[in-house]
């Protein structure tokens, strides 16, 4: 029987399954199965490095332990601070840059290319070279700051007050271009006739921005922030290279702590519970956020 004949009698549904089958299989194998496995592990006292030791069922003990651990809440607070400031700064600066680049001027393309360069770099590389930039003795960062105001020598990475800001600055530097690009796409999709009509109605530039530009670009901005929020919730490489989570645990984000518990301390059961809690948190927030975003779009 020829291949043509063999597939001739397939229904639309069967063809659809044929196309999505490999994706569904991969999704199940790479995402769903590990998730179910992790959920199962989270109810045991399993240690992946203790060969030959059978995991025992411990009920909700790991979850209770995670939720009652003060250090975990400290890490969650560090993560929340990091997310709040990075998202805020990236939204404001990204939108500002998009508004700037939406105007036609000489060198627009070159400036856009230069601005998007940081997000093309590897986060680990960014982390390493910012450690040099932040060096209080030879780093450019101190020099630039002191050029504008003489703060004297200060250590961005070694000080518990400044270290959280050091990671916020680097993430903002690296990922603001992403927010900017998405906002720029939004700005370019606003039809010109809206502004022409506003001009006819003698609306000021500020009113045009508030009543036309901002509502049009807001769904795009929210989408960019959703992506950045998810990424920053699981931020790992850049921060590890930059501060190793220090000083002390001043910049130890939840994901860094999770990695340490899972693959350095090998507390597989405990870290699975922690991972499930983080997953539920981000999944819950993500869902609420998408619903809010859809409502804004509908308006």
């Amino acid at each position: 029987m020829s291949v043509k004949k063999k597939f001739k009698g397939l229904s639309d549904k069967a063809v659809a399954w044929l196309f999505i089958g490999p994706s569904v299989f991969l999704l199940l194998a790479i995402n769903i199965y590990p998730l179910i496995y992790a959920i199962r592990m989270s109810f045991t006292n399993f240690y992946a490095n203790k060969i030959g030791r059978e995991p025992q069922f411990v009920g909700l003990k790991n979850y209770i332990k995670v939720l009652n651990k003060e250090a975990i809440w400290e890490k969650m607070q560090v993560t929340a601070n990091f997310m709040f400031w990075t998202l805020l700064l990236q939204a404001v600066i990204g939108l500002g840059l998009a508004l700037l680049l939406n105007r036609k001027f000489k060198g627009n393309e070159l400036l856009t290319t230069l601005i998007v360069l940081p997000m093309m770099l590897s986060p680990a590389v960014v982390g390493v070279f910012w450690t040099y930039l932040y060096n209080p003795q030879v780093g450019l960062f101190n020099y630039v700051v002191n050029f504008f105001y003489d703060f004297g020598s200060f250590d961005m990475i070694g000080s518990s007050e400044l270290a959280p800001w050091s990671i916020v600055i680097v993430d903002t530097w690296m990922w603001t271009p992403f927010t900017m690009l998405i906002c720029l796409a939004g700005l370019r999709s606003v039809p010109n006739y809206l502004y022409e009509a506003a001009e006819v109605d003698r609306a000021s530039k500020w009113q045009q921005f508030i009543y036309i530009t901002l509502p049009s670009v807001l769904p795009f901005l929210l989408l960019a922030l959703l992506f950045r929020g998810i990424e920053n919730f699981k931020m790992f490489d850049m921060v590890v290279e930059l501060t190793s989570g220090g000083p002390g645990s001043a910049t130890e984000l939840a994901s860094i702590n999770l990695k340490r518990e899972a693959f350095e301390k090998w507390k597989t059961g405990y870290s699975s519970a922690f991972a499930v809690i983080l997953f539920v948190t981000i999944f819950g927030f993500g869902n609420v956020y998408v619903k809010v975003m859809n409502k804004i779009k509908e308006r």
Partner: protein
Amino acid sequence: MKKIMILLFVSLFTFSANSNAKSITLGWAAWDPANALQELTKEFTAETGIDVNFEFVPWPNFADRMLNELNNKGKTFDLLIGDSQWIGAGAVYGHYVKLNDFFDKEGISMNDFSPATVYAYSTWPKGSENYYALPAMGDALAWAYRKDWFDRPELKSEFKKKHGYDLGVPASWDQLYDMCTFFQGREIDGQKRYGAAINTERGSEGITMGVTAAMYAWGMEYENPNKPYDMEGYFNSPQAVEAVEFYRKLYEDCAPPGHSDAYMVANLDAYKSGQVAFQMNWYAFWPGVSKEDSDGRVSGFFANPKQNVAAATLGGQGISVVKYSDKQDLALEYIKWFARPDVQQKWWDLGGYSCHNDVLNSPSFPTSTVYAQGFLDSMGIVKDFWQEPTFVELMLPMQEAIHDYVVNGKGTAKGALDKIIEEWVEVFEADGKL
């Protein structure tokens, strides 16, 4: 076409010949001694025809990379020069081949090696006669200082006037502090200098190795000698608390700016670039430091200073055969060769730290290099971190709590040590030791 076919056949033949050649792979950290070992091993290949491939992993990733490999029963390495603290996990989880029968068969006696190194690098349970490694690289945490600055008459007299004793090798941590503060912020030859580059690294083991150098010197014990794993009152004794407080004072008053996450290479860099008067580091780095200073005019070296007791943090490694290797016979052949006294002498000559008694007890050894006597002194007083199979789980809370106190300035020394004990109790309970 004919030429292409010939080329193809030759390539295939070469590939097949190479894949059949006898070869083993040795894993270690990427540092100066590894290069010396690579050089030394050329003689092994010449003698036996066995090629040795090397995979050297940078220190910050060394433990992660190697322990993951062992936990996954990987076959990448036939031989592994693993850290002293891994011996417990290597033995208990069956990662390393037990070498007793092999040693007996080949006439290799552990009595031929320095007792401190056999105890630290080879045995599990500690002090037993179960050997899982051959002592390969003796090491301890020590200090280097800028002898050329110390020899300046104007600095010497100023120091003596201020402190009432001579500027020289510090006899205690108190003296070390005096000297560090003396140099802190001082301008020498038109450049601002600082006191000491000490371990403050957060990610792997750096700050723990550094702070324990002080804690051991203050007389800290990990546990009650009569009741294993009973740490209360020992690890957080008043002496231990004082030592941790002192280490923070040393960091705050004597470290160069930005030295908040520094370990081996960062300390070396700070010293070599002329920023600091002292650096804390492993003996393994001294051959490199003294290489460009053959007359010993610039740098001097000394063992960890005494405070209440003479003690030093142990470094170093033993060489083990990986249980999952398919080439254990070839790997054992390497160990047999490496244990030979003549090879051990060459090892020392090339910059490796032999643990063989024939080398260490040779009359010429103490004067063979400027740091040889210090090495002998240190190896007699070494103390190590827990060598339990769970040592990583024990190391991480200490890294975090000590970094939080020393660098971050958070809480108290007693609070940090109490927190570490709390976490350690949890680890020992999970491991069934408590």
